């Protein structure tokens, strides 16, 4: 025991560090297990692993369904995020800047897909396309993901706009900017933090989504989580673990990229 350990603030710090360490362990442990299993030599998922190999990673790259789902997932995630932005940002401008009766109600309605269970959403989308006579395709999948992504964009954008006085837009207009020019040169750069955060959320909810994809995907437009889900119904080898790790790194890559872009944009 050293002298500093008698200091109550030092003790408090130690307790805090221990707590943080424990919570990190709890959060990271399942991931660590998946990581360990992905390098196993055994033909079945089991823990603790019995050896080390990269063969399950090779099998992922040799699995055409996995590779197709990877491309699909990225296409769907990017396209649905773009749609969510195209809908969410203008909606945020209307809700945050205009005053009209029913504004609160409209806002609540726009956010409602955050509260409806996604599986219910998936089923209703399936019925909706059937009623319209649309065939399931990658477009219908993108639409489904855009619908759940847009509220995230809306929410973060409204939050930023609420803190941003409309005087900047007025200053721009008084200096000769049209509404569109004022939006592009002043409002959008100033609300970029919120827009980027919303876009990151929309990207994640799309790329990890199972409940909606399950109902509106077909064999050709299968996504990564659905591929894992399907595979695990008939197989139990560690290639799903390897695929999950790959999937995780892809998501992490794009999120880090988005954060970097936000920083370099000059907005904290």
């Amino acid at each position, binding site marked *: 025991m050293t002298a500093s350990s008698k200091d109550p603030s030092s003790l408090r710090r130690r307790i805090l560090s221990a707590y943080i360490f424990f919570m990190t362990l709890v959060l990271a442990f399942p991931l660590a297990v998946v990581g360990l299993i992905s390098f196993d030599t055994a033909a079945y998922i089991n823990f603790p692993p019995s050896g080390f190999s990269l063969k399950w990673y090779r099998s992922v790259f040799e699995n055409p369904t996995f590779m197709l789902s990877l491309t699909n997932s990225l296409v769907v995630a990017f396209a649905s995020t773009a749609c969510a932005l195209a809908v969410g940002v203008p909606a945020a401008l209307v809700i945050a800047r205009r005053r009209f009766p029913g504004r609160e109600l409209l806002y609540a309605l726009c956010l409602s897909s955050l509260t409806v269970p996604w599986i219910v959403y998936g089923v209703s989308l399936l019925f909706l396309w059937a009623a319209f006579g649309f065939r399931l395709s990658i477009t219908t999948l993108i639409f489904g993901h855009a619908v759940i992504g847009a509220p995230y964009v809306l929410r973060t954008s409204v939050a930023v706009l609420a803190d941003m006085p409309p005087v900047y837009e007025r200053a721009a207009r*008084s200096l000769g900017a049209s509404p569109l020019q004022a939006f592009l040169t002043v409002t959008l750069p100033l609300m970029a933090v919120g827009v980027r955060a919303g876009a990151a959320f929309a990207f994640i909810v799309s790329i990890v989504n199972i409940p909606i994809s399950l109902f509106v995907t077909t064999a050709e437009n299968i996504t990564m989580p659905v591929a894992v889900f399907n595979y695990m119904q008939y197989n139990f080898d560690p290639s799903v673990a390897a695929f999950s790790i790959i999937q995780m790194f892809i998501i992490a890559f794009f999120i880090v990229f988005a954060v970097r872009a936000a920083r370099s944009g000059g907005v904290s």
Partner: protein
Amino acid sequence: MSDYDLQLRGIRKAYGDMLAVERIDLDIAKGEFISLLGPSGCGKSTTLMMVAGFEAQSAGEIYIRGRRVDALPPERRRIGMMFQSYALFPHMNVFANVEYGLRMRKVPKAERRLRVQRALELVHMEAFGDRAPGQLSGGQQQRVALARALVTEPDILLLDEPFSALDRQLREELQREVRDLQRKLGITTIFVTHDQEEALLMSDRVAVMSAGRVEQCTSPQDLYGSPATQFVAEFIGRGTFVDATVRERAASLTLFDTALGSVPFPRALDAAHRHARIFFRPEHARPVDNGADPGPGLRFAATIRSLYFQGATSMAQMVADNSDASIVVDVSERMMDRRLQEGARLTIHVPVGRLHVFPARPSGLPSAGAQSAAS
């Protein structure tokens, strides 16, 4: 077509049942600096927003340099504007902020550089071009905002309480600078403020507004010296109101009874009025010696309640013998007089030429209204 840079014709603004601006008619000459002055909610900001195009008027017409603009969006009205919160774009540096209006007007790059440089020199900020607005003090930011508003050479300059966020010394410095620059460039300017001192100091003319109307629009001197309404008298400067009743009426003379004695007034009051309020400024109420005859006017004895020394001027809060009304008297010239102390009784005289008579407002004086109804 006209010599006026800005004309407002019957401007009115209603929000549902609420009238923000009842009716405004104003002609503002080229190069004039005019203030819209009034308490909050009087419609001055709404009026400015309608001139700028951020609010649509419910009725009326707006002309800038003879060009009707009331249906045009703000970006096509050729205005320059300064805001209370500076409103410099935080994601652009000082240079880009000033350049913004020229970029929107598609001015070529070389010319833009030159004009931005000139505008920054005008406000002594040429050394700060690459700074971010957040790195500047409030006064510096407002200078940049002024350069940004002027660089496009707008037809009129609109100032929306641009000094109220600054501390006193900086505010006075900037007021002087804006005024000097405005004179030098000869740019027609509308200035919205609730600060009467600043309005009187800067303006060629001041429009005092109340409840969506212009009460009086004239030079600062006339506004102070000849207030047209009771509201203007109350709002601009200080003074004392005394209730008065008409005792006798002649062709060119009205005799009033007040709590401070009776006074003949060499003007006829509208026959419909039996009650009036008499108003005078502190500097026109003077202590006089008991034997002296300073001529016709209000003469009364009063006791000093409190003395306020304010440097150049000194005020006494007094109470008259037979009235509990509080009277403000300027005693600056007597400050060295040893008799001048709290509790001292003085004879006060206000010459008749310094008295202002306003018909009593029925709403403000319910008891007076009841009296006239009974008689």
